[in-house]
């Protein structure tokens, strides 16, 4: 009889498949007495986290061992209550291999990085004309109304990071203004509001106008069906889509060069009341191993969380080009709700249809 480790995946199906097809066999081979249970928690992570929090202090098993991509700062007070495992003290062998820039909090364990890029239809927009800066992007949108859309910032993330790029743009393209610990209600909201002003300006030129899609996938579908010319997408997902033929070969990608769209590293979190903490730590360790990290690059087209030096040489050489010098990140925590709620309240209703 084997014990079960429950892993909740926030990501799209490519991530789920990655866990199921790559990590799960590796883990179960190394730890035959355990089975890995991969659960899709698509856009619905909060109740599960609440559940773990509620079970804290009782001896109830919350049936959660690991979240593959979660913000330990949510819900408020979870860290103080001791919900999350502090990885600096968890004794994970591969922890030291982590690329320091990827670490945002000691309660999160980064394991893959990705960025949002702009995917577009090369039959309608020549690669040489693709916008390279925010200003060019806005100009293009105004020249081609209805040809751009992104998904709502509460789902999926590609749209959310586009929104965050607007906030960066409105605040002098300085990502350092936004840190995990410097959200102050009121003051910070003013910074965000400036970004929302930019978005309001382009809202009339989005598809619909103002018909923001429900998720990453729906944006890709609109692009695939030729409804729009350009959407922000997660780089790994979009590549996968091209491979699978969902997006035509004629799909092009571009990144803003003045400041890239925000991306980031997925932080695994582990609740301290997980059923079998030791086995879960073994899992975390395996995910950070060079073998799996190599697969992160080759299988899902993402960036490794550990430093390139631990990965095969040829791989580093091949993908270094695609990897920008830095991926601007946007902190989670209270910022997430503030951005999402703010966007819903100020930007989305702005367009009258």
């Amino acid at each position, binding site marked *: 009889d084997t014990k079960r480790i429950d892993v909740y995946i926030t990501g799209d199906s490519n991530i789920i498949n990655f866990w199921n097809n790559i990590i799960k066999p590796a883990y179960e081979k190394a730890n035959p007495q355990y089975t890995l249970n991969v659960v899709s928690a698509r856009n619905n992570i909060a109740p599960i986290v609440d559940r773990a929090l509620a*079970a804290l202090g009782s001896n109830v098993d919350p*049936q959660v061992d690991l979240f593959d991509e979660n913000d330990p700062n949510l819900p408020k007070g979870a860290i103080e209550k001791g919900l999350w495992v502090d990885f600096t003290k968890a004794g994970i062998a591969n922890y030291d291999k982590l690329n320091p820039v990827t670490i945002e909090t000691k309660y999160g364990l980064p394991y893959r990085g990705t960025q949002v890029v702009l995917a577009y239809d090369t039959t309608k927009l020549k690669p040489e004309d693709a916008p390279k800066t925010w200003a060019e992007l806005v100009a293009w949108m105004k020249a081609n109304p209805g040809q751009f859309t992104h998904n709502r910032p509460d789902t999926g993330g590609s749209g959310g990071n586009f929104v965050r790029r607007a906030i960066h743009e409105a605040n002098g393209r300085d990502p350092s203004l936004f840190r995990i610990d410097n959200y102050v209600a009121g003051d910070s909201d003013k910074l965000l509001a400036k970004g929302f002003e930019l978005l309001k300006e382009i809202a009339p030129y989005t598809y619909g106008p103002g018909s923001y899609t429900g998720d990453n996938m729906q944006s890709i579908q609109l692009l695939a069906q*030729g409804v729009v010319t350009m959407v922000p997408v997660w780089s790994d997902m979009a590549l996968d889509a091209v491979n699978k033929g969902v997006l035509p070969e004629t799909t092009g990608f571009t990144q803003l060069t003045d400041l890239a769209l925000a991306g980031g590293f997925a932080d695994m979190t582990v609740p301290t009341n997980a059923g079998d903490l030791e086995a879960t730590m073994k899992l975390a360790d395996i995910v950070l191993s060079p073998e799996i990290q190599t697969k992160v690059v080759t299988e899902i087209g993402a960036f490794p969380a550990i430093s390139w030096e631990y990965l095969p040489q040829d791989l580093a050489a091949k993908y270094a080009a695609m990897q920008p010098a830095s991926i601007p990140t946007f902190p989670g925590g209270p910022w997430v709700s503030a951005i999402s709620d703010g966007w819903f309240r100020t930007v989305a209703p702005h367009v009258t249809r």
Partner: protein
Amino acid sequence: MSVRELRQAGLAGIGSSRIRANWAGIAIAALLSLFILTPLVNVAIWAFTEVWRYPAVIPQKFGFRFWADVLSRGDVHLAMTTSLSLAAIVTALSALICLPASYAFARLNFPGRNLFFMSFLTVYAFPKFGLYITIATIFLGLGLIGNFWGVVLIQLVSTLMFMVWIPVSAFQNVDRRQEEAARDVGASQLRVFWSITLPQVLPAISAAVLLTFVNTFYETEVAWLIGAPEVRTVPLLMVRFINSELVVQYGAVLSLLLWVPSFILLMLVRRFLGAQALGRALGA
């Protein structure tokens, strides 16, 4: 009157109103077909499509590739078994506790009868999300979260209204005289129920059972909020296929797979539904 005359007269008769009535029928049938069938047919086409990009009227490439993919996926099989056993268990339990209750509502007099009867409406009247959030916190303490039986419990509650109301109106429609006649020839109360009452309400009960089964099978929110991670049902899989699967066709294939049982069920219960079991139960 000769046959020819008769036919002429008949045609004249058909002339005005009968044709008009049938035009109405044809119009209704056509519009309804368009409304109901178009999305379904469309999905059916997608299921056999490999590439279909605007503006081609016919998909660029047909194929069965995704069928093999879907059919070989372990999660599909697992979800199917989970969903089927969940629906079967919930339906059986629901029938077990609701049928005696509906008999009591229809035939016995006890204090608070009407109030209790109407209380089942609350199952339908309170927004599910608000409700499940609260229930989830209660369940957590009971260890029912992520538990198959927790999901069963909540699903059971959602089935109560149909499962009580439909049989109640059926029981009320059974002629009391028939039951008395059976007692008259020597049947005990229990025997009367078994041999006389039950067979007559069976169509309505079948309708209720099938509806319950279908509703449970297709339920999404409970399964997620209460059931994860243990309970992964087909609709949850569908949600995933639609929201986060790159390949559109997975959803289409799964849809087609699900419609086969739906269609069989529909054919099965159409007779019972035609008997107005449902509408009357809901108070028309």
